[in-house]
């Protein structure tokens, strides 16, 4: 299924004019965003109904628990996860699909991820 909605946010790129004449007659939705906080960096890339998320965080807190819950909340169907610990950092790459009938913006995903990570940091420091 094709989508023609475009995101108008200034800090995001947009390839709405990208076309492959032999295969597609409609524009393919595509957008990406990068967000950073003190200890967390998030890249989100959306092509049609596929979402790729790269998450890098300093300090070793098991972030898979929080991220997997968040993906469920956002109606993202988990396809592939890879990652682990590198020095002081945790680095993960998630491949997901947007569930049918659901719609999401890259900025919403990135914002939520940063929020969840920072919240878990705060909780961890309290413990």
């Amino acid at each position, binding site marked *: 299924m094709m989508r023609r909605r475009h995101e108008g946010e200034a800090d995001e790129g947009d390839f709405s004019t990208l076309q492959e004449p032999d295969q597609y007659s409609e524009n393919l939705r595509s957008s990406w965003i990068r967000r950073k906080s003190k200890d967390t960096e998030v890249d989100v890339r959306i092509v049609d109904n596929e979402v790729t998320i790269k998450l890098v965080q300093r300090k070793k807190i*098991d972030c*898979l*628990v929080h991220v*997997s*819950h968040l993906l469920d909340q956002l109606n993202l*169907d*988990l396809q*592939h996860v890879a990652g682990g*610990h590198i020095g002081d950092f945790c680095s993960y790459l998630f491949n997901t699909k947007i569930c049918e009938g659901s719609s999401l913006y890259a900025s919403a995903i990135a914002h939520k991820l940063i929020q969840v990570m920072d919240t878990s940091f705060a909780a961890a420091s309290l413990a």
Partner: protein
Amino acid sequence: MEEFSVVATENVSSRQRMSRKRNYDDDTRVYKSKNLEIEGRRREKLSASLLMLRGTIIVDAITYIEKLQYEAKIDEIDAVEDMKNWGIQAEVRVAKIDENKLWVKIIIEKKRGRFSKLMEALNNFGIELIDTNLATTKGASLITSCIQAIL
């Protein structure tokens, strides 16, 4: 003679007054009853419409819930049958790779929320995942990870 005529006049006027009152009462009563009947009918119609509307809402809710259940069942059936069709079985393997480290391989049905619950359970047991991989195909999820206890 004068007394007689005066008395007669009074009688006449009082009679007229009485008749007027009666007419007025009759008119008033008739008017009230008509209005009351009309209002009654109007309210009956409104009540009937409201009942129908409530019924419609309930039917819509039931239909929607059944649709959701149907969709949920489809999803579950897909995952289970997929694994069966491809001869994939759920499994868990654990191997020790160091003093305090284990390697795990887990195959489970691919359902929404399964990975979250697994992560939550391991986290509650104080298990830290170090290097993790998850791949999904044919209704199954393959999870491999190095794990160690959080000190």
